[in-house]
């Protein structure tokens, strides 16, 4: 990971006249703020991607990393996101496809190589925060996937909030019992989810430049919660 401070990340993006952080920048920001993120780094070439994967250990994930690409999975005929790469050859070819597609589209892109995370080992949660024109910083939590989109099972607070209040948010959810384990799945770390909510709220509270943060999914596991994807946008 880079050694940038929270403000450093934001200033760098600002300097580029951008209002959206790349996934890698967003994760740097969250990492600096204390959230767990998968180990990983960006690579500029196929060889470098393999080198990164070797350092991280297999399996890995390789994703397109570019300020021009927001919806990675739909980009470049589906070559933007490659999961569960078991060895150097798979990494090399995935990285090559990403870089070739970027060249075809004429955009500046790199490859983000990250340790693969076992989704089965946890509960996918969405944690977000937005700066409301009337209320200022706000945060939300919900379960990932269908529960948030169809049932709108979310809990909201005005930020900043305490960890206790953030735990109460997770308890507000209809899906709250899932945090405690179900059908043999282990209980997940509710406190770690709460800490992630607090962190998102604090980031919005402390940095007026940030308009919105979305960690989706945040994978809640038995003893931690890790941000698998993140979107951060800045005020225009």
């Amino acid at each position, binding site marked *: 990971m880079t050694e940038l401070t929270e403000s450093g990340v934001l200033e760098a993006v600002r300097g580029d006249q951008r209002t959206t952080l790349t996934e890698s920048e967003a994760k740097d920001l969250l990492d600096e703020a204390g959230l767990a993120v998968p180990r990983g780094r960006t690579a500029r070439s196929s060889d470098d991607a393999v080198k990164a994967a070797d350092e991280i250990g297999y399996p890995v994930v390789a994703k397109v990393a570019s300020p021009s690409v927001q919806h990675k999975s739909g980009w470049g005929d589906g070559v933007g996101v490659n999961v569960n790469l078991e060895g150097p050859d798979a990494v090399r070819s995935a990285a090559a496809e990403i870089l070739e597609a970027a060249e075809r589209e004429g955009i500046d892109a790199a490859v983000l190589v990250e340790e693969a995370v076992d989704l089965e080992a946890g509960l996918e949660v*969405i944690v*977000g*925060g*937005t700066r*409301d*024109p*009337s*209320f*200022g910083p*706000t945060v*939300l939590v*919900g379960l990932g996937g269908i529960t*948030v*989109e169809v049932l*709108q099972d*979310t*809990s*909201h*607070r*005005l930020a*900043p*909030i*305490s960890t*206790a*209040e953030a735990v109460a948010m997770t308890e507000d959810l209809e899906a709250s019992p899932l945090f405690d384990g179900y059908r043999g799945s282990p209980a997940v770390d509710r406190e770690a989810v709460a800490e992630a909510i607090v962190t998102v709220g604090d980031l919005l509270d402390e940095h007026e430049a940030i308009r*919105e*943060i*979305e960690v*989706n999914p945040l994978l809640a596991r038995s003893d931690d919660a890790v941000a698998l994807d993140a*979107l951060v*946008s800045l005020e225009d």
Partner: protein
Amino acid sequence: MSVTNLFDPSGIAVVGASDTPGKIGYEAMRNAIEFDGPVYPVNPSASGTVFGREFVPSVTEIDGDVDLALICVPAQVVPDVVAECSEADIGAAIIFAGGFSEAGPEGQELQDRLVAAAEEGGVSLLGPNTSGFLEPSRDLYATFASDIEGIPAGNLAIIAQSGGLAYAVAFQAENAGVGISAMVGLGNRATVGFREAIDYFDGDERTDAILLHVEGTDRGRELLEACRESETPVVAYNVGEQDVGDFAESHTGALTGEHELYEAGFAQYGVPTVRSSPELLDAGKALADCPEPDGPNVGIVTAQAGPGIAITDRLKAAGATLPSLTEETQAVVEEILPGITFSANPVDTGRPMPEFGEVVAAVARDDNVDIVLVYELYEGSVGYPTDVLEGVVDEVDKPIVFASGGPEAILDEELAELEELRIPTYRAPERAADAVGALVRYAKRNRNPDAVAAEEVNADD
């Protein structure tokens, strides 16, 4: 900008006053003259008198003490009239006309001009697009609505974003025989908004609870802070379920609706919320009349099982705790009524009986209980325990809330006697339960404010 000129005027000018019944300038004048202070009709194109008062051509030519203008002229000329008010040293004005920020870009431009004139001239504005306000105890009717004299004086201040909703609540109060200290329709909130109105009525000695109606404001955080700072209890009715937006960009933006933020914000800042205007009034009555509850522990005494169960069900959903009664209380209850149907909490006496009041008093004196809720159908041979409960509210310094059912004429008379003992009464079990729910939420805020709130208070020390 002070709002004292607005809500506590010494003299009133009615600008655009008219002697033609049905015109706003006539209706406002007819209401204004009830006030015990000078009232001046202002109209450059009228002569003679209206309601026995001589027309004055301009506010600048009034010979007397005026600090509030009721502006009954069309929207386009309102900014100029406000500038004249400033010249005449009139510190507050009510703008009844619509056609401002609620009416598109042109209206917004007009409102911007109006605000500029008001700020430059130091004039507090209620409205535009409002029905005004009234304070029955002082016969102060700064409004154009008719048939409002019957709204009784009391201790509830209604502060509504919508002038129409303000009257909807005020007339429900009148119908229910509940008195109000003030009713205010904020309208477009050009300069006087929630913060200013809440601050003023918090300091008003006639007001014991503030009833808010909120549709939406671009100063949400400030509204919540005003509620939290108010020593007078505030209860809020927020209208407008969210529209769920498009998920294309991010979920966070789409899922964060105004309604969610109001509900979350009111809860975080310790403001009970309600889902309807009747509930607003019911909750306000309990908050205003009862001693401040120390906690969320409710002791229920019922003479009939069914209503008691309905009440219990609803209270639990509202976050109330139903504590066990102390052994002492249980012994007292057993002694009063041996073999009582159910002497835990709820206490169910099975039917009204002469000793019912003693049971209520025993539960009220229980140290585990912060709030008492009583249900008893009216039974002629027994009546209500008014005599026994006299002085109990002050003695235990806890809310006692009473619900009943019976013939209207009897309830009108008999429940009024309980109300005089600072025991608010309701005529449906669920309405009493909802009112107690508001007391419970208010008590939780006082006992256990959110950690953030606590930190801020400490920082202020």
